[in-house]
């Protein structure tokens, strides 16, 4: 179990729906998860991502659709017959059992011989780096330790797939960052098909092979973290993942324009119409200093600094463009940036390289 021999299984979700009265919590969602993939369901609260996870686990009965693991239909099975491991948001560790009893519980249910249970519990505790904690009470564990025990209990019985419901939301920020890397590493080692739910975009970007973004019960886009960040399919995704400012575009005789300024695009301009927006990532905008070299096809914007904030690892500016739109600019905290840090009220020029000039459709 703790070696790479775990057989990973593919999951297929077809036209899955859950309605609560007139509310479509999950609205005919379909996607496939590859064997061994780490997929994160990302979305704001009420987007249907948790309902979807609960349907996969079997705690919520869908109105329609199909859930298949390795081609086998499970939509009609009760939770205890699905053989799916799950890490709950608040961990749901049994408070009347010790750490060891919690982890052994799934194995005891499967009538595995005592010696083997002991062996497997020890190995999984070792895997989550809590070897020797078996006799502790749950109340004696810290939040991070409970999280790892919940994970240990979810994988000890070699479930077909692993689910995680906001697994890190109860931890403080530093611990969350560490655990993201740790879970990523564990997944690289076990290669178990994993579906995680979160509303934290950084968590999704850090841990996932692919991310499925949900909004209002519908699947917006499934893509790798890089793809999703660089080429979001809608304004919703562009706004939800990373920070972005948007500028309205239109097409005239010269080409694609923002106001009366022609915009040089990285991508094919076909299909750009009145509904398109220019997506500005704060870290891709640069404040041009007098000596900086600019290319012919860079897009330049004039504006005035509204606020300048020092945020430690970076500097954040709010800049009002001459057309009145406000955009955010982020500069890494390097000594040259810090020295030349413009103050509120200063006039600045922003540069957006052509390769970073991306458009998204306004709808959605």
């Amino acid at each position, binding site marked *: 179990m703790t070696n790479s021999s775990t057989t990973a299984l593919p999951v297929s979700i077809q036209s899955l729906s859950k309605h609560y009265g007139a509310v479509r919590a999950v609205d005919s969602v379909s996607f496939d998860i590859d064997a061994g993939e780490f997929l994160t369901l990302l979305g704001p609260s009420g987007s249907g991502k948790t309902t979807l996870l609960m349907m996969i686990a079997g705690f919520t009965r869908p109105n329609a659709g199909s859930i298949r693991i390795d081609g086998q239909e499970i939509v009609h099975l009760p*939770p*205890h017959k699905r053989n799916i491991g799950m890490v709950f948001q608040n961990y749901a560790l049994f408070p009347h059992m010790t750490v060891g009893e919690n982890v052994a519980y799934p194995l005891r249910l499967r009538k595995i011989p005592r010696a083997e249970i002991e062996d497997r519990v020890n190995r999984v505790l070792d895997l989550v780096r809590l070897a020797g904690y078996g006799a502790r*009470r749950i109340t004696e564990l810290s939040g991070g330790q409970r999280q790892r025990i919940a994970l240990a209990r979810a994988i000890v019985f070699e479930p077909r797939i692993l689910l995680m419901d906001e697994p890190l939301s109860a931890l403080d920020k530093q611990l969350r960052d560490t655990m993201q890397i740790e879970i990523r590493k564990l997944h690289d080692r076990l290669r178990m098909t994993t579906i995680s739910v979160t509303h934290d975009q950084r968590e999704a970007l850090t841990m996932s092979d692919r991310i499925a973004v949900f909004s209002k019960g519908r699947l917006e886009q499934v893509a790798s973290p890089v793809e999703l960040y660089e080429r979001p399919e809608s304004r919703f995704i562009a706004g939800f993942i990373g920070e972005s400012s948007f500028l309205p575009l239109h097409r005239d005789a010269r080409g694609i324009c923002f106001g009366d300024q022609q915009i040089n695009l990285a991508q094919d301009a076909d299909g750009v119409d009145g509904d398109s927006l220019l997506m500005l990532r704060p870290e891709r905008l640069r404040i041009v200093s007098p000596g900086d070299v600019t290319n012919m096809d860079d897009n330049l914007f004039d504006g005035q600094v509204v606020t300048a904030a020092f945020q430690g690892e970076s500097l954040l500016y709010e800049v009002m463009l001459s057309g009145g739109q406000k955009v955010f600019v982020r500069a890494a905290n390097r000594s040259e940036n810090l020295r030349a840090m413009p103050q509120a009220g200063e006039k600045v020029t922003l540069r957006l390289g052509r390769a970073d000039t991306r458009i998204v459709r306004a709808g959605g």
Partner: protein
Amino acid sequence: MEPAALAETAIPQAQLDRNRHTLNRERRHENWSMLRLTIPALLIVGVLMVAPLLWLLSMSFVDIEGNYGLGNYRLFFSEPVYVEIFLNTFKIALMVTVISVLMGYPVAYLMSILPPKWAGPMMLAVLVPFWTSGLVRTFSWLIILQRKGLINETLSWLNLIERPLTLVHNMTGTVIGMVHIMIPFLILPLYASMKAIDGNLMRAAANVGSSPTHAFFRIFLPLSMPGLIAGTIMIFVMSLGFYITPALLGGGRVKMIAQRIEESLALYPTWGPAAALAVLLLLMTALCLWISLILVRRLSPERVR
């Protein structure tokens, strides 16, 4: 320039000493104020509980001839009627407790899992009788259970029985009436205890492969134990000293200690035998509480150590 060093030199030692003195005085004053708030309660407990109990204890040593000694207590162990009454009392209390648990647990469980829309009215159905006088409820049972009562009339109208069932003026009626009065004392702490159980625990149990039945016995039941034990103790102890219901619904055939205490008062010239019975009841109740406290320690999920 160090600001901390500056502050230290600016405030003279005398001022710091005065501050410490004042702060200590304030703390003592606060403690005394808190203590004063408890004085009325302490007085009430002292005057109305401890003193009468001591008085009762002293009276229990005065036998029917007015002599000081253990005469009353000796009476209990020599007269078989007393042994029988004590056994009877425990038997009834135990029956009432067991039946209340068997009937009350499912109700509390249902209330704890139903949405508030349904749990609210159910709670009301538990509380309204709870708020109604025990005497009124006992007389109501008399009407329902008697020979020409609601139940017997209905059953004979349905031709299910030929002769009326004796449901009252016996053990059956006593137990029915007592269960009705006692059951809220089980349901209320049990419900509170169940509500505190994280719903995800049962989901987690199902997730790792536990059937609903197994999860109930391995997870839910142990975690509801504190409320169950609290309710059980409450019912058992209250049942031991019950008077009105057995007196009315038992129809003189069911004797419990409280009734015997009342009879002793009328029967003997001194209060001695009644007082001795009361002391014995108190001791046995205390013993029950002590045993159950040990049980709580053993069975509580957190294993209080």
